[in-house]
């Protein structure tokens, strides 16, 4: 079975290279054909625009009869992606997988997911709630994350910056990632974010 999997990966890899799409990229790892790194660029007119997002792709031995295991290794603020672990909620990576789908289709689908979130089928409930109830704050937060973690261009939100600095003053043991995560989780309410850090200590 692993033979079909490896043969498919080689062909799919070439397909992505040959297609010459600028917005997706696939890299083989030297030591293991069944483990790849994918890259997608954030779609235009979304908070993710201009960012470069990495995904880790693990090919099961039963591929392509079962879907690849894919998760983001770049931190991302999106209702269908865990802001903590990068785990993705996407139907084609679960029960809607079909054996004729390829890694190219997976990467393009992830890009489409960044353009069109499905907050009613969330992976990260906190993000989904913010998306639904404070949409403008959601967009600013997602942009801030894309700039901070995925290299998206543009000046950082100064209000968010100030809150992060203040958070780090009050909780000096926390690092910058934790500060951003905590503040984002609490809709950038610094009192609640700090209170929560001390609660879990």
């Amino acid at each position, binding site marked *: 079975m692993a033979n079909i999997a490896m043969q498919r990966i080689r062909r799919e890899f070439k397909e992505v290279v040959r297609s010459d799409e600028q917005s997706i990229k696939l890299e083989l790892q030297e030591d293991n054909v069944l483990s790849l790194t994918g890259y997608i660029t954030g779609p235009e007119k979304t908070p993710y625009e201009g960012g470069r997002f990495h995904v880790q792709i693990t090919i099961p031995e039963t591929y392509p009869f079962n879907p690849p295991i894919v998760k983001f290794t770049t931190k991302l603020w999106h209702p269908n992606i865990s802001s903590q672990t990068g785990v993705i909620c996407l139907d084609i990576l679960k029960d809607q997988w*079909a*054996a*004729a789908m390829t890694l190219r289709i997976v990467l393009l689908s992830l890009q489409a997911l960044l353009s069109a979130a499905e907050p009613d089928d969330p992976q990260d409930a906190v993000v989904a709630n913010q998306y639904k109830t404070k949409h403008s704050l959601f967009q600013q937060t997602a942009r801030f994350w894309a700039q901070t973690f995925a290299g998206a261009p543009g000046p950082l939100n100064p209000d968010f910056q100030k809150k992060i600095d203040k958070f780090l003053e009050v909780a000096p043991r926390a690092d910058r990632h934790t500060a951003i995560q905590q503040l984002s989780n609490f809709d950038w309410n610094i009192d609640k974010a700090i209170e929560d850090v001390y609660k879990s200590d």
Partner: protein
Amino acid sequence: MPETDDKSEDTATFECNICLDTAKNAVISMCGHLFCWPCLYQWLETRPQGQVCPVCKAGISRDKVIPLYGRGGSKTDPREKLPPRPQGHRTEPEADYAGPGGGHRYVFGDNPHFLSFGIGAFPFGFFASSFNLAGGAGNPMEHQHRDAAGPADHQMQDQLVSKLFLWLACIFLLWLLMA
């Protein structure tokens, strides 16, 4: 496996949609998508419930795919290999089969034992099925075909039905002897 990078568009048309290689023991679905039979078989085995075409997600089943026989293809019958490729949808010659039930399996697919109860050589038909000798009564190819087809629960159902009929047949014979 030879590298086949520089394939023209023409040969790509005959690539299996699952392994992406030239289709071997090719079958085609009702929606027109081409696969190797072993590839499609494994896909159907992976998804016993809600079987869909791996390309377009139309409904698909092993009884509704058509084998493609090219000229000068494999000399050996692909159905003798495991898993066997399903047969083409041609009418079986009647003389070969016990009774008019022969053509029915495509209509009623899952329950050949039950059919032979109503139509076939009753009651000995049950005995045959109960001891799993159905192949002797009918077309051996069909028997092999069905065995490979069955998701486990169907086979279990079949076995259950067979056992039930075996008992019924025994009672019937006893009753015949006593009368």
